[in-house]
């Protein structure tokens, strides 16, 4: 099997807030009854993380489950485990109405690191990035400038976000441009 390339080919910028392509990632789109124990437990197993409630992001070292809508989660895992994950979810939910597809290549995952990351994001998204409004454990799907994105904090000083593959360079450039600008000094710094 030939090597898989991510949309951003490992792009990164350093600075007070670093912007970095996290490389290929396993991503599984799961739609179904999010209240069903079978769905929750197989997602937990595949991601090696907890299962989120409304608007949540459950993250672990191995993967994550991101709440996308009332009937959809995105399960993150290693790229080379995605196909197996789809199979496991399919098997666990066989006979119930659901959809589980490998979408590992449909999106890019970009990491932000640095104390000023909230203000970098606040230049681009109308969502409230104040620490009281947006905390680790939350998944915020929103708009970054002119395209859709989903953002979650992995700590007070680090975040990851997803956007569609075709606009990955646009989003990366937006973030790098915003990160290069001097601090605004509006939000409290972690």
């Amino acid at each position, binding site marked *: 099997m030939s090597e898989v390339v991510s949309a951003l080919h490992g792009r990164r910028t350093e600075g007070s807030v670093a912007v970095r392509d996290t490389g290929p990632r396993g991503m599984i789109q799961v739609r179904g009854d999010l209240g069903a124990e079978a769905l929750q437990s197989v997602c937990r197993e595949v991601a090696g993380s907890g299962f989120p409630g409304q*608007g949540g992001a459950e993250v672990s070292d191995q993967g994550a489950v991101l709440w996308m*809508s*009332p009937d959809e989660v995105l399960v993150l895992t290693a790229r080379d485990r995605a196909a197996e994950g789809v199979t496991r979810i399919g098997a666990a939910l066989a006979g119930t109405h659901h959809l589980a597809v490998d979408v590992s290549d449909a999106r890019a995952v970009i990491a932000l690191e640095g104390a000023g990351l909230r203000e970098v994001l606040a230049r681009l998204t109308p969502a409230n990035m104040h620490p009281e409004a947006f905390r680790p454990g939350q998944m915020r799907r929103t708009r970054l400038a002119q395209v859709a994105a989903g953002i979650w904090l992995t700590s007070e000083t680090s975040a990851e976000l997803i956007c569609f593959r075709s606009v990955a360079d646009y989003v990366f450039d937006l973030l790098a441009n915003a990160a290069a600008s001097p601090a605004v000094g509006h939000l409290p710094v972690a």
Partner: protein
Amino acid sequence: MLTLQCPYCGVQCDETELSPGGEAHLTRFGPGSDDTEFEQYLFLRENPRGVHFERWRHAYGCGKWFHAARCTMTLEVFGTYPAQVTEPPADLIEKIREKRPGWRWRDLA
């Protein structure tokens, strides 16, 4: 620029995260309907100076359609609710009645 709460996500959305979808609670008329019914369904819309029920999609979020009861004059939002209903929730209608005595919308009052 409006803010509306997405009833699915619970987040207060900026209008730029939403896409508008016109009037809510339309009844579809398909084959077999007469011209008057079809015209009503496809083209004729309420245009109230006051409380209106309208459709919105959380386009940059969960992608779900929801409905909002909003005054077109004061921009007051009485509530939002999922789109999988044929008429507004009773408690919302009650709330509007209290705030806007004499209010009417189609056959609702």
